[in-house]
């Protein structure tokens, strides 16, 4: 699957297999390319939790510090997106425990909280995008979480998404379908779907 938003410059296209040893050797450009390529995975896999903005940023940064410290132990660079998503969510788990918002010890047990409505300000110049944004905001927290995880860039496999959510791998596809159908059925999206 092609990475939708990958940087277009030469380093941005370099495979993880090449970037990892270069970063270990101290190549800052390679490290920045790694962070750049994996930033969306780290950020969007930790949306929706009971964390303040600063804590979410700390979890994001800590994910990459941990990637940095573990670089030499990465055996399968192609699996980095899944590793980053798992690590980022573990960081959230640790922070929620440190903030006394979570007593559970199971790292899968990450309660979702309702998110504030997203601002309309100057973001959407496209009617369809605005409708998708409003439709997405009206979905259940579980559907939002699943759709965030199946739209990560670079993408995660269904097996990786299933592991993150502690759901059977075979149920990710059908659940994705159900959530997309719910999205199409929202009041915001309906006018764009029905034949006219």
């Amino acid at each position, binding site marked *: 699957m092609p990475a939708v938003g990958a940087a277009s410059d030469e380093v941005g296209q370099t495979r993880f297999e090449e970037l990892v040893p270069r970063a270990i050797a101290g190549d800052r450009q390679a490290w920045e390319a790694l962070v750049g390529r994996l*930033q969306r995975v780290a950020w969007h896999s930790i949306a929706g939790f009971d964390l303040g903005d600063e804590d979410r940023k*700390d*979890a994001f940064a800590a994910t990459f510090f941990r990637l*940095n410290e573990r670089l030499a132990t990465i055996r399968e660079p192609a699996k980095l997106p899944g590793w980053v998503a798992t690590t980022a969510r573990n960081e959230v788990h640790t922070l929620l425990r*440190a903030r006394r918002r979570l007593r559970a010890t199971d790292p899968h047990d990450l309660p979702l909280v309702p998110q504030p409505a997203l601002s309309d300000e100057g*973001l959407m110049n496209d009617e369809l995008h605005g409708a998708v*944004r409003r439709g*997405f905001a009206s979905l259940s927290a579980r559907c939002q979480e699943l*759709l965030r995880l199946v*739209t990560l860039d670079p993408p995660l496999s269904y097996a990786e998404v299933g592991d993150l959510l502690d759901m059977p791998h075979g149920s990710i596809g059908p659940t994705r379908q159900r959530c997309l159908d719910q999205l199409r059925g929202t009041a915001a999206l309906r006018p764009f779907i029905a034949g006219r």
Partner: protein
Amino acid sequence: MEERFDDDQLLAVLTHVIDETDPVPADALATAMAADLSGLDAELAELVFDSLLDQGGTTMRDDPGDVRSLTFTSGDRTIEVDLADGGLVGRVSPAEDTPVELEQGATRVPLPVDDLGRFRAVVQPGPLRLRVGGAAGAVATPWITR
């Protein structure tokens, strides 16, 4: 009824919308990119105890002044840290002429260490780690999320 877009098209728009409405903050990205690449040859100490994670949830108190205790080992070296909101105290053993550095983001601060291997430091919010030098080789703790 005709669908204006199939699953792949809808997911593509959704990917774009999620990026647009919840972009990665520039300061967090800059912090991650500024990670220090120079200390990657240090031995990574193993976290053997973390009071936050190793104590049962029921024993946690709701006092924000709680101290979190962590212990790391590497070979025969042990690094113990007691971490509170604004500072830390710790001890490295065996105590020898051992430099200790506190790392936060891209900043490293050398800490004075006494004859018993004890050190203390004021800490900023956010993740931190300790680096220990000396004749036995460089050791770094894993990053501590806090």
